[in-house]
């Protein structure tokens, strides 16, 4: 049973030569089999949390700790974190011209699994996962994220997640820019992985829309770089009805 523990995490970012504090003491525990939703207004720092855990060089961890099954994540490079079992599905996946999806997937799977997957079973595995996400087989021959629609990019992220089977998956605004069909396929992919009980999911979202498709066990309200409140699914319903204002006000008066 894997466990991700974030303790008193303070993170800053360099903007125009000035260091700006974004995370101000985040505490969070995500266990395999759990689905957490982090909700918050724009600029609250919720994406920064995901990128800090994944190790984006833009962010500086000032203090605090991140561990995965007790191992110090902050001491690992970005790729070591991934090989330790972390996965980040990005809001804006990056284009990699000239690198085909099939080459990319196989290279990633080889890195994560520590050996090249057997070709015959691999081809089948990729094809079946793509079918479940309603992705055309020709997709595999396209260059990574190049000319992909918003929905194709997000399905491609979920495809990778399902193939790489991470211990902890961070999904940054996986629902943004999706039409209803794409949202359904993406959610089904997330739910398939959640159902294995082997993966802890951290769903970062601005809207409650995706929570109609994915049932979170825990909901956290993220405001001004901290978790302002935590609760169950009912907290999301409350946010849907009354927004973030209540938490923003209490945040600023504190």
């Amino acid at each position, binding site marked *: 049973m894997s466990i991700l523990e974030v303790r008193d995490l303070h993170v800053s970012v360099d903007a125009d030569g000035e260091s700006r504090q974004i995370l101000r003491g985040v505490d969070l525990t995500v266990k395999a089999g759990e689905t957490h939703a982090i909700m918050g207004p724009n600029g609250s720092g919720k994406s920064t949390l995901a990128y800090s855990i994944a190790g984006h060089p833009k962010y500086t961890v000032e203090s605090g700790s991140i561990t995965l099954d007790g191992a110090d994540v902050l001491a690992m490079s970005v790729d070591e974190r991934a090989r330790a079992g972390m996965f980040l599905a990005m809001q804006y996946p*990056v284009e*990699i011209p000239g690198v085909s999806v099939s080459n990319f997937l196989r*290279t990633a799977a080889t890195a*994560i699994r520590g050996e090249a997957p057997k070709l015959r079973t691999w081809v089948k595995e990729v094809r079946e996962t793509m079918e479940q996400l309603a992705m055309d087989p020709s997709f595999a021959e396209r*260059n990574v994220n190049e000319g992909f629609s918003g929905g194709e990019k997000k399905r491609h992220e979920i495809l990778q997640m399902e193939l790489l089977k991470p211990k902890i998956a961070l999904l940054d605004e996986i629902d943004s820019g999706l039409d209803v069909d794409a949202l359904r396929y993406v959610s089904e992919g997330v739910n398939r992985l959640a159902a294995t009980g082997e993966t802890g999911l951290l769903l970062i979202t601005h809207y409650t829309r995706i929570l109609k498709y994915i049932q979170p066990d825990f909901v956290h309200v993220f405001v001004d770089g901290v978790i302002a409140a935590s609760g169950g699914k009912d907290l999301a319903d409350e946010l849907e009805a009354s927004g973030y204002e209540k938490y923003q006000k209490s945040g600023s008066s504190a």
Partner: protein
Amino acid sequence: MTQTTHDHVASLVGSFDPADFVVPTGREEQWRFTPLRRTGGLVDGTAVSGAGISLTVEAPEGVTTQHVDSSDAQAVLLGAPTDRAAALAINRAESTTVVTIAADAQLDEPVWIKCVGSDATTAAFAHVVIDVKPFAQATIVIDRTGSTHISDVVDVKVGDGAHVTIVSLQDWAADTVHLGHQRHLVGRDASVKSVIITLGGSLVRLVPTVAYDAPGGSAEMFGLFFAGNGQHLEHRLFVDHAVPNCTSRVTYKGALQGTEAQPSHSVWIGDVLIRAAAVGTDTYEINRNLVLTDFARADSVPNLEIETGEVAGAGHASATGRFDDEQLFYLQTRGIPAEEARRLVVRGFFHEILQQIGIEQLQARLVARVEAELEGHGV
């Protein structure tokens, strides 16, 4: 004031007589990036002609090759050049090689024009005319290897409804100097795809141009260059939209690496002119340069001039930089180690152009060539 595309290209008057052009000093817009002192008399005309190249044409059925005088009607198919070096090349070439692809021919094998240099101490001049008759479909490879100082002009006339892919490969030895013009004239509803790959040579300066004979033409111009070890690689494109409803796409990618002793330099100029009559034009040009080391300089200048309000699309982009950190981060979050991620990104960068060639054997040779360059520099 900045000189516009129109000023420095369209106002030039063509001539077959080199004496009609002043000898450039290096201050002219057209020549300001070129190290003229390294051109060995190919521009001022002082170069002594030798027998430094052999030019052979291997072609399947449906193709004829002739050698005609430079004043022959077939030789002047694309009109007078607007550049001194081009005028000199035509003027001093022993003869003009005319390759004619018959109307309606569907070539299943490429036409190979092999240009092999064997002497870099004397100058060579060459003029090739490729006349693709209406509704033909052909792939042409111009394969340049060896040591030489050469100035050449390749003229490609794409007849109405014809579809042509022309790959020109500069796989020269390290001491070669090559000044080249590749002119394309695109007929009604015809298309041309040009892939220019420049890897070898000490100084290579190429001027690919596109003009349209009639509406409905399309041109895709791809380019790839890899400048290292003191090389100067220059590509100056000019697409002249003077008739309605034509399209152009220009995609050039370069990689550079240099050392303090041997800095390298690449130049990419993308001039696109949409004249008043060229309504419905759709054009986009892009240049990306990947700078792998210090001591490498990439100049990239897109120029887009539009004289009509009724275009379907017009845009350009240019970016020069080191590795894209976001690409590396993305790959690393998938467990791929930094070194391998860099390799993937660089090879992908080249592959995007190489995959346009469509000739497996040639593609494999170029992948191996690029691989050797990269390995040599530990990338």
